[in-house]
């Protein structure tokens, strides 16, 4: 298979520096019905998240006497990629991503406050350009906070990895597809605990350590944008315009 050039004149294809994030725009409280919501545009990714709950657990017999069940459904729209029309609804990829996103929030959402209930995180990818799960996590964190669900901490992440022999932050689509390694990772803000981690491709332990370090740095920038979005939502009365 032909591997396209991932660097031009020492810069990445979209002109970014190695540690530079794509432009990120976050709006909180864009949906009326959902208890909390957020829209995230991250480079060419567009993701919307809505939160419901704590509400009655369905099925009822699945309810826990100790805690709220946290559920997550991440799906990709059939029109989300430049290639052919996709299938609507969950598939194997989205089922796995839903599971690991749910688990990332499992440690920060204070589910113990709401026994016998469930909290639903619904994330839909409207447009994809590589790094959708990280954009989904950014949106879900803001939407959960927007829903007023108590959390121990905020979660922010980024995909790092190796492309064209270089360690890069926030992989774009070509870097994701043709690069050597992709590692989406997310941290809690205060303690820098890793709550989400996946990796594929080949890395030495040294490269891996460096990737985690640069991801930690970049996640701080994402966190700042997430907080800013929440601050704005408190200032705006009656929700904000969904400016896709």
């Amino acid at each position: 298979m032909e591997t396209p050039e991932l660097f031009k004149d020492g810069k990445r294809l979209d002109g970014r520096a190695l540690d530079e994030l794509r432009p990120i725009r976050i709006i909180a409280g864009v949906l009326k019905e959902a208890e909390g919501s957020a829209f995230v545009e991250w480079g060419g990714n567009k993701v919307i998240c809505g939160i419901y709950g704590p509400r009655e657990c369905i099925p009822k017999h699945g309810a826990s006497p100790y805690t709220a069940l946290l559920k997550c459904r991440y799906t990709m729209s059939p029109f989300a990629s430049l290639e052919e029309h996709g299938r609507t609804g969950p598939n194997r990829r989205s089922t796995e991503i839903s599971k690991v996103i749910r688990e990332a929030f499992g440690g920060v959402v204070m589910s113990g406050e709401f026994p016998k209930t469930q909290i639903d995180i619904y994330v839909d990818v409207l447009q994809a350009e590589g790094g959708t799960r990280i954009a989904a996590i950014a949106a879900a964190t803001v939407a959960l906070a927007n829903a007023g669900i108590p959390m121990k901490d905020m979660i922010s992440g980024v995909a790092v990895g190796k492309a064209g022999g270089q360690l890069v932050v926030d992989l774009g689509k070509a870097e994701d597809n043709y690069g050597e390694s992709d590692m989406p990772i997310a941290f809690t803000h205060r303690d820098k605990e890793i709550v989400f981690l996946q990796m594929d491709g080949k890395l030495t332990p040294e490269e891996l350590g460096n990737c985690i370090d640069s991801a930690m740095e970049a996640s701080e920038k994402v966190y700042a944008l997430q907080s800013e979005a929440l601050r704005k939502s408190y200032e705006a009365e009656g929700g904000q315009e969904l400016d896709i």
Partner: protein
Amino acid sequence: MGDEAKELVLKEVDRELLTNLLAQGKRMDERGLNDYRQVKVTKGVLSTAEGSALAQIGDSKVLCGVKYGEMTPFPDRPTEGVFMVMAEFLPLASPTFEPGPPSPYSIELARVVDRGIRSAEVIDTASMFIEEGKVLAIFIDLYVMDHGGNLTDTAALAAAAALSDTKVPKVVDGKIVRGDYVGPLKMPDKPVTSTFIKVGDKILLDPLRSEEHAADCQLTVGTIDGRVVCMQKSGAGSMKKSEVMECVDVALAKGKELRSYI
């Protein structure tokens, strides 16, 4: 009580037990924190499949069958063969497994094993081209038959062993001739995984089923010689960078040990 709630009760019980044991420097079966249970790999256990292996780690048993097929290539890679990994959690493997569509757990397991094989680039997909619009496909099916904990490592081991047992079928006039082979599947590396759980501030390799119950979270590290080829964190807890790096070091060392069984 629903299954998830039942798991939560078991988790409380097992967690207290394991935490007490760990405080005395022990685990549920008195192994060291970075020890595997007994590992056993038997290759060539099926004569109908092009490759097969039964892997056992402790009480966990996973059978892997490798079958070849013909397929239309993916449009973006028209000259490359295809391979896919599927996992079946048989209802006979555990009282908690029920018949029905694949659970998120079985999908996750299959996809982690798949990522390890894909990242390690052990299958030469370019050699699987038959003719325009037709390529060979390799189906790697993982049959979980006994759930004693750490299914991921057992399944990855079964897959690597079954692939190293695989014979490439002969293709005549664009069709596979069943039972006729051109030779063994070339496999430059054997990707395996090492799975750790975190309980409080302790990290344990190769968890038992009951230890998995007690875990805050789990980290799987796939390796080939000197390189990490996949990672997956699952479960609600979190890990520090230093803990991840420690797991990576142990996984690289233990990977060698696991490969020696294949």
